C-alpha cells in the first residue's frame, strides 16, 4: 500500500508582492496563494518578497524554501511540505478517490475546480494519509493552498474526517497542517457543516486520548480557523504566518477598522495566548518528531479513558 507519490512542482514560484513589512492586508480571500507565477529565464533565481534578497533557487530549496537572508517562509505546496516533514517513502495517501461535485450548481464552480486541479496537480484542497515522522507513525492531513485557497468543501471535510476516524481505529496521533481561506462558499451550507463534521471527529479523537497537533501556516482563516485548525492539543504556527478568523480586508470593509501592523501574525496570536509554539520550517520535523515521541502510546502513566 505504501507508495511514493511525491511530485515536484514544475515552476519556480515567485510571489510578485514586494511588501517589505507584513501588514494584515497581505491576505484576503480574494488573493491567491501564489500571487503570480513568473518563470525566470533560467529558473535559477528567486527574489525574496520580504527582504528583496535575490536567492539561488537551489539554496532556497535546500533551506525548506525559507529565505536564507531574512527567514521569510515562502508558501509551499502540500507535497513540498510532505517531503520536508515525513520519513522517506513512509507516506501512504488515503482517499484520493473522492472527487468534488457541484451540488448547488453554483455559478462558475465547475470551471474553478478544473482550473484548481490543473494548477495544483491534485484533486482537492487537502492531502491525507499515513506517514512516519522521525520514526513515529502518524496520520497526516495537509491543506493544499494552491487549490482554491485550500478552502473546505464537502471533499476536504470528508477526507479530513475519514483520516481522523482512521487514526482512532489505528490508535495513532493526528497532525493537520492548515492553509486555508475558510469554508468554500460554492458548496453553501454543505461547506459550513464540514466545520461541524471535522470538529465532531476531533471530539471523538480527543475522547480517545489521542494526540492532535495542529500546524498553522500562512494563511489560515475563516471556517478552518473556526474548526479543525484551532482544536489541536498543541497549536504550532510557522513564523509570521497570518492566522485569524476574519480576513483583514473584510474587517476593514465591514468594521472600517484598520488592523495594526503585525496583527494576525503568528507572533500576535501567540502574544494573545492562542498559539503554543512558533516553529521555523527547518525545525518543524524535529519538533513534531519529539512531540510525537513524548506522546507515544505506552509512554503514558495511565490515561483515563
Amino acid at each position, binding site marked *: 500500500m505504501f507508495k511514493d507519490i511525491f511530485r515536484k512542482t514544475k515552476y519556480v514560484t515567485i510571489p510578485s508582492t514586494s511588501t517589505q513589512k507584513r501588514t494584515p492586508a497581505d491576505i484576503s480571500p480574494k488573493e491567491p496563494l501564489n500571487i503570480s507565477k513568473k518563470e525566470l529565464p533560467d529558473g535559477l533565481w528567486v527574489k525574496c518578497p520580504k527582504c528583496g534578497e535575490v536567492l539561488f533557487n537551489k539554496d532556497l530549496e535546500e533551506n525548506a524554501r525559507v529565505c536564507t537572508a531574512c527567514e521569510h517562509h515562502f508558501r509551499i505546496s502540500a507535497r513540498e511540505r510532505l517531503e520536508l516533514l515525513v520519513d522517506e517513502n513512509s507516506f501512504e495517501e488515503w482517499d484520493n478517490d473522492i472527487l468534488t461535485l457541484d451540488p448547488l450548481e453554483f455559478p462558475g464552480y465547475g470551471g474553478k475546480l478544473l482550473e484548481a486541479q490543473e494548477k495544483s496537480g491534485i484533486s482537492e484542497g487537502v492531502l491525507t494519509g499515513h506517514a512516519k515522522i522521525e520514526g513515529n507513525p502518524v496520520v497526516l492531513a495537509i491543506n493544499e493552498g494552491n487549490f482554491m485557497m485550500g478552502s473546505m468543501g464537502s471533499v476536504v471535510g470528508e477526507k479530513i474526517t475519514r483520516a481522523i476516524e482512521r487514526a482512532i481505529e489505528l490508535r495513532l496521533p493526528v497532525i493537520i497542517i492548515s492553509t486555508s481561506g475558510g469554508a468554500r462558499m460554492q458548496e453553501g451550507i454543505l461547506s459550513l457543516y464540514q466545520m461541524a463534521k471535522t470538529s465532531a471527529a476531533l471530539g471523538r479523537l480527543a475522547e480517545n486520548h489521542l494526540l492532535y497537533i495542529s500546524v498553522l501556516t500562512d494563511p489560515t482563516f475563516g471556517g478552518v480557523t473556526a474548526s479543525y485548525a484551532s*482544536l489541536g492539543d498543541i497549536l504550532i504556527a510557522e513564523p509570521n504566518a497570518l492566522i485569524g478568523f476574519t480576513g483583514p480586508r473584510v474587517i476593514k470593509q465591514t468594521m472600517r477598522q484598520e488592523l495594526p501592523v503585525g496583527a494576525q501574525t503568528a507572533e500576535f496570536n501567540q502574544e494573545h495566548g492562542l498559539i503554543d509554539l512558533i516553529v521555523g520550517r527547518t525545525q518543524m520535523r524535529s519538533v513534531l518528531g519529539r512531540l510525537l515521541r513524548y506522546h507515544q502510546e505506552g509512554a503514558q502513566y495511565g490515561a483515563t479513558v
Partner: protein
Amino acid sequence: MVQLFDFEKPIVELIQKISELQKFSAEKEIDLSQEIATLEKKVVLLKQEIYGNLEPWQKVQIARHPERPNFYDYAPLLFEDFIELKGDRLFADDRSVVGGIALFRGTAVTVVAQVKGRDTKENIKRNFGMPHPEGYHKALRLMDQAEKFGRPILTFIDTPGAACDLAAEERGQGEAIARCLQAMSCYHVPVISTVIGEGGSGGALALGVGNVVLMLENSFYSVIAPESCASILWKDSAKAKEAAAALQFTAQDLQRLGVVDEIVHEPQGGAHKDTDHTAGQLSLVISKHLTSLMSETPDVLREKRHQKLRSIGVYKEISQKSLDNFEKRLD
C-alpha cells in the same frame, strides 16, 4: 408602523384601493359591496402568490426585518420560567448571546440564544447580534452544564455572523467557535437548534450542532452573507440578490440538502405579523422533537447526532481506473 418591503407594495396598494372604495361607497351611498368583495378575494390571492413565492433575497429581507421577533419576544411565550445566567467566567458578559435555564412545557432545559437589538442603543449593547469569543465561551459554559445535569439544550440562532473586529481576533474568535462545535457534537443530551432569523456563517453554526435543526419559514442560514459573496465573486455587493439565489440558503433548500429537519410555519408575511402565533408554532414543533429525542438513550442520541453531521456533504467516489485517468490528465 411596520416597515414595508417593495414586494409587499402591490398588496398594500390593493388594500388602500379597497378602503378608498369603501369610503367612496359610504359617502356617495353607492353599493359597491360586490366589487369590494371581489377585490378582497384578490388580496387573499395576491398575498398567497407573493408570500407563498418569496425569492431568497426577499426572505433575507424578512429575516432581517427590524421588527422580526427576537429571542426575548419568544421567551415569555415559549417558557413558563426563564432564569437568565450570565457571563463566561473569564472576561465579560456578552449580550449578543443570552442563556439560562428555562422551563419548557414542564421540562427544565438549557437555552442559549443569539439576540440582536431592537434599536440603535440596544444594537450597540448587543453588538448587532454578533458575538465575541466571550459569547461563545458563555454558550459553551452553559451547554456543558446542561450536559453535566442531563438537561436538554435548545439553541436559537439569530446573528449576521460572529463579531469581525480586532478584539474578536485578539481573543480567539476561531477557537471559541470551534470549541462550541466540538463540544456540541459530543453531548449526550438532546440538542435542538432553531434558526429564528439570520443564520450567519460560522458564528451561527457555533450554536447549530443539534440532533434536530429547525428553521422558521422565512429565516436563512448561509455559509456567507449574500453581500460578501457577491463582493468576492463579482466584485459587486449590489449583486447580493443573485448571490442569495446561488447560495441556496432558505429553509426549503436546507431541508433538501439534509441539514434542516423541519420548517416551522410563519404567519403570512413573516413572523413579525403575529409573534404569538409564531411562538405557538415553534413551541409545538420543538415539543414534538424534544419528546421524541428524550425517548432515546444518551448514547444513542449522541451517536445519531454524530451520524447526522457525518452524513452532510456531497461528493463522489470514483474507481481506481477513473482515478488513474484523472491523474494522467493532471500530469
